[in-house]
């Protein structure tokens, strides 16, 4: 562990080093952290890989419960038990699009910096939209071409980020866009309807309870689109899904 620093109001960035992991992580994948050695909390906690700098790896989080409260108390020198990288990366290598439209709501910003780098490596331009309650909750580092929306209007567009995207794209159309979105479920639903209406390909990165993170507990079903009811696994088949493949 390298330490935990603050990156916004109630927002923390935890960094640790792992050479092997830093090389293998792809944008959109997550890490499954054991926060306590005791059985309280029992299960690991999943976090998106946020940043990689040489062998140093970062995650960004806010304190919502016991696990994240314990994470915040971690100190430099503590040993972290991390499983990962887990899940499938975002599909950035995709001839079907030219411009990445990145949308993050709140801490849904987490996977966007790595995604930005990945898209740039593919030579694809990026435009980023970030929404939060207020300016203090915006984590704007390592993003490109950033447009922000806040509920209280304290920075950027006043209102929700999906309205901002829709507004922006109608004024500044981009060539063959693909949306990559991460954030709370209501936002993802709004993004999905917007993408469907605008016929833009769209991947959303989902969140939900996970038991194992590796596909062995069947605890993280994501309902698939299609006439017959069936489920994919968020941890193994996701966490990002093309909105055409799932019920959202």
């Amino acid at each position, binding site marked *: 562990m390298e330490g935990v620093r603050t990156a916004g109001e109630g927002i923390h960035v935890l960094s640790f080093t792992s050479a092997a992991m830093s090389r293998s992580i792809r944008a959109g994948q997550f890490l499954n952290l054991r926060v306590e050695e005791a*059985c309280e909390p029992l299960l690991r906690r999943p976090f998106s890989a946020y940043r990689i700098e040489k062998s140093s790896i970062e995650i960004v989080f806010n304190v919502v419960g016991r696990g994240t409260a314990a994470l915040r108390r971690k100190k430099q020198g503590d040993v972290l038990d991390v499983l990962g990288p887990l899940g499938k990366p975002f599909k950035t290598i995709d001839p079907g699009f030219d411009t990445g439209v990145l949308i993050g709501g709140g801490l849904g910003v987490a996977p966007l910096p790595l995604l930005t780098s990945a898209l740039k490596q593919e030579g694809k331009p990026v435009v980023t939209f970030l929404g939060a309650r207020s300016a203090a909750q915006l984590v704007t580092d390592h993003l490109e071409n950033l447009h922000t929306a806040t509920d209280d209007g304290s920075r950027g567009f006043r209102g929700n980020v999906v309205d901002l995207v829709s507004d922006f794209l109608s004024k500044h159309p981009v060539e063959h866009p693909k949306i990559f979105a991460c954030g709370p479920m209501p936002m993802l639903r709004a993004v999905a309807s917007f993408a469907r209406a605008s016929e833009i390909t769209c991947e959303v990165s989902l969140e939900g*309870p996970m038991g194992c993170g590796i596909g062995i507990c069947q605890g993280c079903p994501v309902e698939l689109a299609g006439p017959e009811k069936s489920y994919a696994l968020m941890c193994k088949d996701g966490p990002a899904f093309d909105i055409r493949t799932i019920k959202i």
Partner: protein
Amino acid sequence: MALTSFRLAGLELKNRVLVASGTYGYGDDCLETADPGKLGGIITKSLSLKPRIGNPPVRIAETAGGMLNSIGLANIGVHRFLSEKLPFLRSVDTAVIANIAASTIEEYCEVLRILEGEDGIDGFEINVSCPNVREGGLIFGTDCAAVAEITRRLRALTKKPLLVKLTPNVTRIGEFARAVEAEGGDAVSVMNTLIGMAIDIKTRKPVLSTVTGGLSGPAIKPVALAKVYEAARAVRIPVIGIGGITNASDALEFLIAGATAVQVGTANFIDPAAGIKVAEGIARYCDENGIPDVADLVGSLDAGSGTSVLDSWL
């Protein structure tokens, strides 16, 4: 080095630690982090005749020292298991026990028949914690006569080791163990999950889509240990201990209480190598304590003059 291998109903296992059904998938998702060949055995996710998509989300909830699940026996079905999963499992140097779930006795028989001839399946574990559709959904495993009948019918169909996995949600698990023994079952696996529930007080809805679910993990270990102790005193066939085993010390408690072997379940979610570590820890304990064979530990509890609640009371 202590002897760790043993025979379970004729089947040679390299050690006494298996991974529990539903907590290790079909063995093919745990590879990178841990070599399943170091396990005593792998019990597959419960297999049903047809694939089952399982229950809608939310399927799991964390509780104090434990977790609730209502997976709904999601599995790829016995046929896809044979074509997609068994080849890999054959390549692993460990015993493979197919766990079977069904909603009628005929279906149990049918699944077993399909698996019986297959090379690479070393035995069967019957999950009786399933609703009996003929009896209005009552769990087979809470009906002693049903457990007896399932055992009898399946026994007639196989010479391979036949394990019956009992539910703890009954008054006297010893009676169920005896029923299995009487009908020729080779061993009882004790135990499946306890029925539990969690409510989200913000929405006033159950956390799980199925209202109640199965409780597992360290929280249930004391209950599992008592059930294993009860079952082991009721029968002569082996009892396989399951419930909240996280480390070697937990597993040793089960062996001492009378379990011939143990299964590691929920702990795999936290550390996919948990089972291997447990097996290694048992061997280390034996070496450190001059115990030549893990068998010497089984049922070695020195209960002194203490009488248990199972006989008397608190």
